[in-house]
C-alpha cells in the first residue's frame, strides 16, 4: 500500500487553494503521535507513504522520499530504506527496536520513529495527513 504526497508540478488553475505546507517528518510524527527514536532533521520532506512488511513490495511501490510504516523490526528494513532513498521508517505497534537495527539506522542516517498504534491505524492517519484536505483521486494532495 502506498500513497503519494508529491505536489503536482502544474496545479490546475481552478484549484484555488493556498500552497499546502510541505509534509515533513515532523508533521507526520505529530499526526501519528510517534516517538522519535533517531532523527537528525524533522524538517526533512516526506513525499509519500508506503506501509508493508514485505521489503520487496517496498522496493516496488516506494518512491524516493517516501516514509515506510512497518511492523517488521530487523536490519533489512533499514537496508531497504537506504537502498530505496526513503525519508525514514516508522515502526508500528510499539515494536522493540533491536540495538543492531538502531545502530545501522544511525550509520546509514535513516530517521527512525516508533508508534504505539497498530499498523492499520498508523497507516490510516498518515493517509489522512498526506491525502487529506480533499486530496485528489490520484493520491496526490491538493495543489
Amino acid at each position, binding site marked *: 500500500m502506498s500513497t503519494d504526497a508529491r505536489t503536482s508540478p502544474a496545479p490546475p488553475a481552478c484549484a484555488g487553494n493556498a500552497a499546502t505546507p510541505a509534509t515533513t517528518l515532523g508533521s507526520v510524527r505529530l499526526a501519528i503521535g510517534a516517538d522519535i527514536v533517531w532523527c537528525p532533521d524533522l524538517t526533512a520532506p516526506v513525499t509519500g507513504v508506503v506501509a508493508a*512488511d*514485505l*521489503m*520487496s*513490495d*517496498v*522496493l*516496488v511501490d516506494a518512491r*524516493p522520499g517516501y516514509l515506510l510504516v*512497518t511492523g*517488521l523490526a*530487523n*536490519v*533489512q*528494513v533499514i*537496508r*531497504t530504506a*537506504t*537502498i*530505496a*532513498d526513503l525519508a525514514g521508517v516508522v515502526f508500528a505497534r510499539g515494536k522493540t527496536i533491536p540495538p*543492531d537495527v538502531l545502530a545501522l539506522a544511525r550509520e*546509514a542516517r535513516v530517521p527512525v520513529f516508533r508508534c504505539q498504534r497498530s499498523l492499520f491505524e498508523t497507516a490510516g492517519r498518515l493517509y489522512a495527513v498526506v491525502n487529506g484536505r480533499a486530496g485528489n483521486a490520484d493520491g496526490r494532495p491538493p495543489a
Partner: protein
Amino acid sequence: MTDAEFVRAYDVAGADFTNAGRASTSIKETLKNMGFASTLVRRVAIAAYEAEMNLVMYARRGTMTLKVTPDDVTIDVRDEGPGIPDIALAMQEGYTTATPEMREMGFGAGMGLPNIQRNTDALAISSEVQRGTHLVMRVHVS
C-alpha cells in the same frame, strides 16, 4: 570519469542476514560518488539488493561484481548454491520457494527476479541445479 573500466568485487556469504545488503549499499554509494544520476543509482541499487538477498537466502556463498564503463553499469552475481531448476517459473511474480524464516526477513515473496528485471535494461540468468546461478544485470548510462 575516464574510459577505463571500473571494477569492484564483493564476497557475499550465504545465510548471513546481519550483513545482507552491505554489498549493495556499498555499490550504491560508489555509483553516487562517481556522479551518476540518482535515478540510475537507485535502479542499480534495488536490482543489486534483490540479487544479494536471493544469494544470502539460497546460496552458500557468492560474489557480486560491479563493472562501470562509459556506456553501462553492470552487476555480475555468481553463487554456489542449489541453482534454479525452472528459470521461467522463477521469473513469475509471486512464485517462491522461500522458507518462513526467509519471509520473516521481509523477502521471499516471489518478487526478487521480477523486480530485478523491472529495474534493469538487460538481465541474463543461467543456472545449473546443485551448482549455482549466474546473473548479469545491466543498466545503460544514458
